[in-house]
């Protein structure tokens, strides 16, 4: 029975999704106000169940196909919080467009179930299936609005590149299976060193393909081309879910897969790959975001930059202890006299960063969704900076919330984004990645420019004359208030949460 504990959050989400789907068919009522409440309650119950699981000891369950460890449980908890907030944003957004249907929330919950299962999968085929469960749900959500060509176009791009990356991952897994004869990650970890000695070609090509597959999912440069178009074209609440949930789940799985593979390779190989990806992603993400006047597109590039900061944390996890990997900025300078970095600090940093990023990004996209008007859907300037001009006079509450989200994305205290960056960068410095950490700090300083520009427009520019009153619904206000409070509270009092997350150092098999 204990084996099924980790499945409870996902099962809750699936049950909620089925209830919503059936109610859409059998309750033929025009009033669908209850749906968002059902969806939010389901996510909250799943989040509580996941939080409960986080205090279970780490162990392998379901015959080694999955693991129950605090790392995946905290991650599930975060995904559920993100899902609940995106659901609330979506309710207001869809009501305004008269497009609120049960299947929308059902798909959101199915995607969340896929993310939760992906976080705990410990076998390649299980990882592939859960990746597809969450992807197929997100493809449909992206193309959900059928007004105008943009959502369909974004859905198509997301689908082709998502399926492409999934097949890269799968082919890589097939080659690794050929080299070792196993697909479970813990068995792979034992079998891979021998296979790497006898069949290095299979192992290295497999490793590269799996890495490329994940890099597409987390939108690391140079595998990021799809991100801006998909994020811009998808309905804004779906974009929020994508940037918060899909990315976090893919990151957790990436860490799990590569920790299992690192023993078979020379220590510099995974380190240099992740460090190079991190550097390019941080720099390119921020540079590409800078000239954007389209706020939604700017947030898409900003999510690429944030993937770069997270990859910096991942690189810290793989930093060869004591070894000298000399490669310019990527050089490793061990500060702690060659001792291995406490992996727990890195996990804590990654999870805190993901938590802060989840509430911030859902809130930021929520604000974008709030001021979006349905009449603008087919125009190109829907999300132009001008739309934010004078928001402080028109909607002071929203303007203050958006300012908090922008400061958090920029990493300015006292916000969650600042503490997250602090944890990740200090873990990187402890691991000796000084050059990379400095590059990260410089990149995020450069990023402050385009985040603060939104704040300047909101507070210091006069309101345009033709500005009309936006559509208001209580769900949007609840979502924005909750995320804004969470962003500031996590920034002011990170202590308790950080302490819980220290438990996440218990990743199964890698203490």
């Amino acid at each position, binding site marked *: 029975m204990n084996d099924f504990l980790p499945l409870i959050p996902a099962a809750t989400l699936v049950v909620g999704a089925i209830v919503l789907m059936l109610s859409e068919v059998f309750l033929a009522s025009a009033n669908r106000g209850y749906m968002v409440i059902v969806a939010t309650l389901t996510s909250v119950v799943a989040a509580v169940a996941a939080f409960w699981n986080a205090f279970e000891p780490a162990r392998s369950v379901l015959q080694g196909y999955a693991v129950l460890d605090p790392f995946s449980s905290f991650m599930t908890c975060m995904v559920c919080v993100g899902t609940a907030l995106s659901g609330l944003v979506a309710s207001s957004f869809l009501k305004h467009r008269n497009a609120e249907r049960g299947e929308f929330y059902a798909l959101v919950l199915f995607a969340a179930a896929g993310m939760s299962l992906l976080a705990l999968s410990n076998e*390649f*085929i299980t990882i*592939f*299936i859960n990746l*597809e469960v969450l*992807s*197929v749900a997100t*493809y*449909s959500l992206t*193309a959900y609005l*059928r007004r*105008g*060509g*943009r*959502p*369909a*176009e*974004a*859905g*198509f791009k997301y*689908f*082709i590149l998502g*399926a*492409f990356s*999934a*097949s*890269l991952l*799968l*082919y890589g*897994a*097939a*080659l690794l*299976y*050929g080299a070792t*004869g*196993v*697909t479970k990650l813990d068995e792979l970890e034992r079998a891979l060193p021998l296979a790497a000695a006898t069949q290095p070609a299979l192992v290295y090509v497999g490793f590269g393909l799996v890495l490329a597959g994940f890099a597409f999912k987390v939108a690391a440069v140079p595998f990021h081309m799809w991100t*801006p*178009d998909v994020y*811009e*074209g998808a309905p804004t609440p779906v974009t929020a879910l994508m940037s918060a949930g899909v990315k976090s789940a893919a990151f957790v799985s990436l860490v799990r897969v590569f920790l299992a593979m690192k023993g078979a390779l020379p220590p510099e190989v995974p380190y240099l790959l992740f460090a190079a990806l991190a550097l390019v992603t941080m720099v390119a993400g921020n540079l590409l975001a800078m000239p954007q006047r389209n706020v939604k*597109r700017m947030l898409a590039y900003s999510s690429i930059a944030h993937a770069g900061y997270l990859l910096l944390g991942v690189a810290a996890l793989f930093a060869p202890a004591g070894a000298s990997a000399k490669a310019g900025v990527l050089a490793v300078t061990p500060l702690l006299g060659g001792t291995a970095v406490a992996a727990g600090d890195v996990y804590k940093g990654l999870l805190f960063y993901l938590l802060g990023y989840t509430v911030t990004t859902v809130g930021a996209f929520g604000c974008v969704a709030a001021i979006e008007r349905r009449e603008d859907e087919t125009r*190109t300037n829907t999300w132009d900076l001008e739309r934010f001009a004078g928001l402080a006079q028109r909607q002071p509450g929203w303007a203050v919330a958006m300012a908090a989200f922008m400061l958090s994305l920029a990493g300015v205290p006292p916000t969650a984004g600042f503490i997250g960056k602090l944890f990740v960068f200090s873990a990187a410095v402890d691991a000796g990645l000084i050059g990379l950490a400095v590059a990260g700090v410089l990149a995020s300083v450069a990023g402050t420019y385009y985040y603060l520009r939104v704040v300047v427009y909101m507070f210091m520019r006069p309101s345009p004359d033709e500005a009309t009153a936006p559509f208001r619904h209580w769900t949007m206000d609840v979502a924005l208030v909750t995320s804004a409070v969470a962003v500031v509270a996590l920034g002011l009092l990170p202590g308790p949460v950080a302490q819980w997350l220290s438990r996440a150092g218990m990743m199964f098999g890698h203490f």
Partner: protein
Amino acid sequence: MIPTSHSLILAAALFAIGMLGVLVRRNALVAFMCVELMLNAANLTFLAFARERGDVTGHLSAFFIIAVAAAEAAVGLAIVIAVFRARGTVNIEEIQSMKH
């Protein structure tokens, strides 16, 4: 019995054709078929190795992959239809309304 290497080379060739097709071909449906080709190349690789080792894991994987590919195909085709309805074309080059 056909040696494993033959199946593996065929799978690698299918994978390469699929990958090239996704990157080069301009018709959305053809790109979509190329992605299916890539998935099936992975499938064939799993099966070739499973037969060589007499191991059941690879055979099982193939079944799961087929099921997942079918689900993906359903959603993918629905999206292609939505694109065609909105634009009247499935040429990827003409589906570029968002500016960079």
